[in-house]
């Protein structure tokens, strides 16, 4: 049992770390909030002073705001769908006793080690470019016109690249869950005459539910802010076809040098992320309580 002295000692010793952490989080957030109510343009130093809600009205009134919001949700949803279905499938495969299992697992996980801009560049120039990309050559080999992915299917292309990067993460978590399933339970079901589909549906899937929840929660947090892949490949275009909220903030703040409106966009993005997070915690997070 802690005495009063040890408690004070513990708090004193922890204080510096806690204070540094607080400052580290609070200062940028406070600055963003402050700038979002200021007239602040990098290229026009004459524009200064309190802006009221003007920056917020400007960002939310942006003709591409609604589309960016929809794109953000499609991006998150699309990547989640691919990674969870693909991850479950890969986890089931990797769980089988096969020769070279160790090397295979490392290969499957390896995309996760590649930095997002690098991955995007590889996909852009190496695979999806209609002229020099591998897919273009493949299409030509079959006598077809190469697909110009980033112009014809911009959002889909970004989803593919991001899903490729996050698939290993989902696979890894789901595989771990799968391996914690007791062999006896499976064998018992098998002896009772349950076929593979039923075993998957009634034993394996419920067992993995918690892991799937973790994957959804963690990935959603990261996927709401996808940026590098869009910046490197489509630049938010054509038009606003692949502009998400993060890219819209970048376009307003950095491309147009409007720090005030960019900060307002950042605050809006934080609010949206929190709404999505609360919704998710309610919808799927209850799995974690059980």
């Amino acid at each position, binding site marked *: 049992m802690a005495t009063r002295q040890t408690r004070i000692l513990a708090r004193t010793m922890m204080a510096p770390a806690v204070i540094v952490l607080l400052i580290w989080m609070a200062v940028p957030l406070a600055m963003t909030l402050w700038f979002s109510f200021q007239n602040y*343009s*990098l*290229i*026009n*130093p004459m524009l200064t002073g309190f802006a009221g809600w003007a920056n917020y009205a*400007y960002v939310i*009134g942006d*003709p591409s705001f609604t589309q960016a919001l929809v794109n953000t949700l499609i991006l998150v949803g699309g990547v989640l769908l691919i990674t969870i279905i693909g991850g479950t499938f890969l986890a089931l495969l990797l769980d089988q006793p096969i020769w070279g299992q160790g090397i295979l697992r490392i290969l499957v996980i390896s995309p996760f080690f590649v930095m997002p801009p690098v991955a995007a560049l590889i996909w852009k120039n190496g695979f999806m*470019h*209609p*002229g020099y990309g591998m897919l273009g050559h493949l299409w030509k080999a079959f006598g077809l*016109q*190469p697909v*110009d992915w*980033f*112009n*014809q299917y*911009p959002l889909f292309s970004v989803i593919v690249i991001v899903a490729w990067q996050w698939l290993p993460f989902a696979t890894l978590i789901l595989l771990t869950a799968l391996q914690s399933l007791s062999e006896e339970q499976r064998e018992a079901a098998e002896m009772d005459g349950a076929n593979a589909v039923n075993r998957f549906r009634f034993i394996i899937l419920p067992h993995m539910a918690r892991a799937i929840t973790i994957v959804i929660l963690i990935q959603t947090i990261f996927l709401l802010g996808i940026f590098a892949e869009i910046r490197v490949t489509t*630049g*938010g*275009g*054509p*038009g*606003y*076809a692949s502009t998400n909220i993060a890219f819209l903030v970048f*376009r307003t703040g*950095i*491309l*147009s*040098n*409007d720090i005030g409106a960019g900060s307002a966009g950042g605050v809006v993005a934080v609010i949206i992320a929190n709404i999505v997070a609360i919704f998710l915690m309610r919808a799927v997070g209850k799995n974690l309580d059980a």
Partner: protein
Amino acid sequence: MKLTPLFVGATLLALTGSASAQTLTIATVNNGDMIRMQGLSSQFTEETGIALNWVVLEENTLRQNVTTDIATNGGQYDIMTIGTYEAPIWAKQGWLKPLDALSADADYDVDDLLPAIRGGLSVDGTLYAAPFYGESSFIMYRTDLMEKAGLEMPEAPTWEFIGEAARAMTDRDNDINGICLRGKAGWGENMAFLTAMSNSFGARWFDENWQPQFDQPEWKNTLDTYLSLMADAGPSGASSNGFNENLTLFQQGKCGMWIDATVAASFVTNPEDSTVADKVGFAQAPDNGLGKRGNWLWAWSLAIPASSQNAEAAETFINWATSKDYLALVAENEGWANVPPGTRTSLYENPDYQAAAPFAAMTLASIDSADPNAPTVEPVPYVGVQFVAIPEFAGIGTNVGQLFSAALAGQMSADDALAQAQEATLRDMTRAGYIK
């Protein structure tokens, strides 16, 4: 023994001291002439002992980097490569150091700089950036394909002729596109071309009250002509093509015509890089008989940000890189055809250059025909041929560029692109206070 730490300390101090005084950080664009300069710059270091630290970036990235750095007084660079768009705006903000020593240097001969370009880089007669190369735009075309199509390129063609020729030269089975034009979004990418093109159609960005003009028939005519031309005779994936992508296509023999920067002339006629070097002809940018041609005016220039701690050394370097001696140095190493063009009168009077560069006269004529002070058929409140010289234009132009790029990619109709461009531009101009 006691002296050693002191000695080491003093040496270190001397080393760091001299290193900081003698190293210039230069931000530049990844265009061919700059890469060449980077290669030759070891000579400068040998002559002066000033070391150079290069930051070579793609055009759009360079602009963002240097704009952010100079606006926040970041002090990352001693020399920045900027264009005729940035120079006067930044100079007025007090962000650039005036190049007084350069202007006073008789050997440098500031009066030799082409008047249009020198004017574009000066504010109230003071030079704030030195032109490294200057350019307008013109038509580069394949003489063999033109002959095969049974046509002859006039020296100053119309848009109608260009459309006819582009469609006649297109041979999709053999991967030959009648015309390659910029489609990549950006105020300095597709909008540079489209704004210059729109001038020849009688369109303008703003009327005299700063009202955007995308709802006018002239813009619709411009965009419709551009889109149908590219649909019938352009390369696939054109909405990702900027200067460098089109250069590669032309050098590989995949374009019948290409309307772009005059500096490209030396790259497409260089047999080492271009498969069609001996089959390239040049003509002035097209017009519609309205008195304006669709060509632009630009100079990539070197300037010193006010935050630079090495201004003197920086000016020495700028002097070296933009001097007559540098032109001679490139000529000696790479031949006269490859010297950076479009900055000095003396170059165009040089018989060696005239002999080596078949495009010299056409380049000079194109530069001379672009007037930043009266760029459009009808009067406008702004300066700039292929841009509008206001600080907000970079953001607005890129935004509109995105929409037009989407129309080219088939993601949006021309009418929708124009309507959205009008709405977005009106919004931004109202926010910036131009429209009350």
